[in-house]
């Protein structure tokens, strides 16, 4: 049993919603326990500045930010080295599922705000981003689902949070492209043996698969509603 009562392979309670913003072309909110991310997508649209445009494909731009009040100690607004790295690995995790070659000379902008942070913010951000891209009607090969696993008190557990994170021994976030069974984000902090590593990756992948089902359900519900609206 874990501090918050979860089983070792149990995700925190998840809440997901698409179409949460009016102005963005697509949007989504994704909550994993006390971590909340909102994503808004604009595009495909014209590229400014022009010289960043690519002749053969759309450019994907991702921005991960944290609200100043999202952390226990206030975070200074504006980009940090950490947020720049995360923006980059999120972008690299999403590219494989997008048909960027279909929209040459355009930009697809994914803006993600973490409103509340309690571990796995990059995972929640990615889950929200994938839903927002789908909500924007951007053509996709598949969704991307993201989840972390890790080690705390010597135990391998799914979706570390709270004290498990601050006192934990290892954190390993993964993003998963289910159709291709491909891991498109993989980072790790902590110490482990090779056997542990493999178990943790497998567990994180399992978490991604659960999240993928939730993402699909949320989109399906939205789609049904859309059907009703049109009647």
């Amino acid at each position, binding site marked *: 049993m874990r501090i918050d009562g979860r089983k070792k392979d149990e995700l925190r309670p998840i809440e997901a919603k698409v179409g949460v913003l009016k102005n963005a072309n697509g*949007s989504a909110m994704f909550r994993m326990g*006390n971590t909340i991310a909102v994503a808004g997508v604009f595009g495909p649209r014209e590229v400014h500045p022009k010289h960043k445009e690519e002749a053969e494909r759309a450019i994907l731009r991702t921005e991960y930010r944290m*609200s100043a009040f*999202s952390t226990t*100690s206030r975070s200074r607004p504006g980009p940090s080295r950490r947020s720049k790295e995360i923006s980059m690995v999120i972008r690299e995790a999403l590219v494989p599922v997008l048909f960027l070659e279909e929209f040459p000379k355009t930009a697809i902008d994914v803006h993600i705000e973490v409103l509340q942070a309690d571990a796995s913010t990059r995972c929640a951000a990615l889950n929200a981003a994938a839903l927002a891209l789908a909500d924007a009607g951007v053509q996709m090969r598949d969704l991307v689902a993201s989840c972390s696993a890790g080690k705390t008190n010597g135990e391998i557990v799914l979706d570390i949070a709270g004290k498990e994170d601050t006192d934990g021994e290892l954190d390993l976030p993964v993003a998963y492209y289910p159709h291709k069974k491909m891991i498109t984000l993989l980072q790790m902090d902590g110490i482990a043996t090779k056997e542990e590593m493999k178990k943790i990756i497998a567990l994180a992948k399992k978490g991604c698969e659960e999240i993928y089902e939730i993402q699909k359900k949320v989109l399906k519900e939205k789609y049904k509603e859309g059907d009703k609206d049109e009647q």
Partner: protein
Amino acid sequence: MIETDKELIKNIVMKGKRLDKRAFDEYRKIAIESGVISSAEGSARVRIGDTEVVAGVKMDIGEPYPDSKDAGVLTVNAEFLPLASEEFESGPPREDSIELARVVDRAIRESKCIDFKKLCIEEGKKVWMVFVDISVIDHDGNLIDAAGLASVQALASARMPKLIKNKDSYEVDYENRSKEKLPMSGIPVSTTFVKIGGQIMADPLLSEELAMDARLTVGTFDSNGKIRFCSMQKGGNGGFTEDEIAAILDMAEEKGEELRKLIKKG
């Protein structure tokens, strides 16, 4: 926004109407939730129509300003999140986000609704710093009023973190918030009016802001049952006559009272 849209808005106004059929002195539906951010000492989400803003209050220990050594420090910052509008880009703060933060800051500061002397920990050395951070999440006009409401609700619902005194230093324990509220009396709110084709109207939509001649934001607060004015800010590339301003002050008084009723104390 193209010129014809502006003309459209003006034409509707000329006919005594608004795009969304509201009366000229009518606000859109306002929804206020507090305590939406568990990591913040206080927080609130405000929706005015399709405009959405979240404000969070964070507190920390810091040093007082040399010219007011016995007073806590207030910092208000606003971020126009790029996801809130296709016009908002990443990068340095836009001038309108600076203006918004400063107008909200002035309404709070000038109304003296927070007793900053009570936020002094050790004179000249340590005081509480109160950060109000505003994230604009969806923009459909009248961000100032939404941000003002969210900030005040976040402050009103805030609980001080615990202060731990060591031998010769202080620490903040954020895990265990006290039940203590901020020393607050009075609720300052901003009410914003725009002029389009000579007509004054409250709570502008984004499309109305783009078509407006000028904007006037008026801050009011309640002081022992009386209404007082504490801030004003004209915006936009036009102006107001003295009579128009007088009319706006009347409306601000009335609308301010309406908005104040929406704030839940504590």
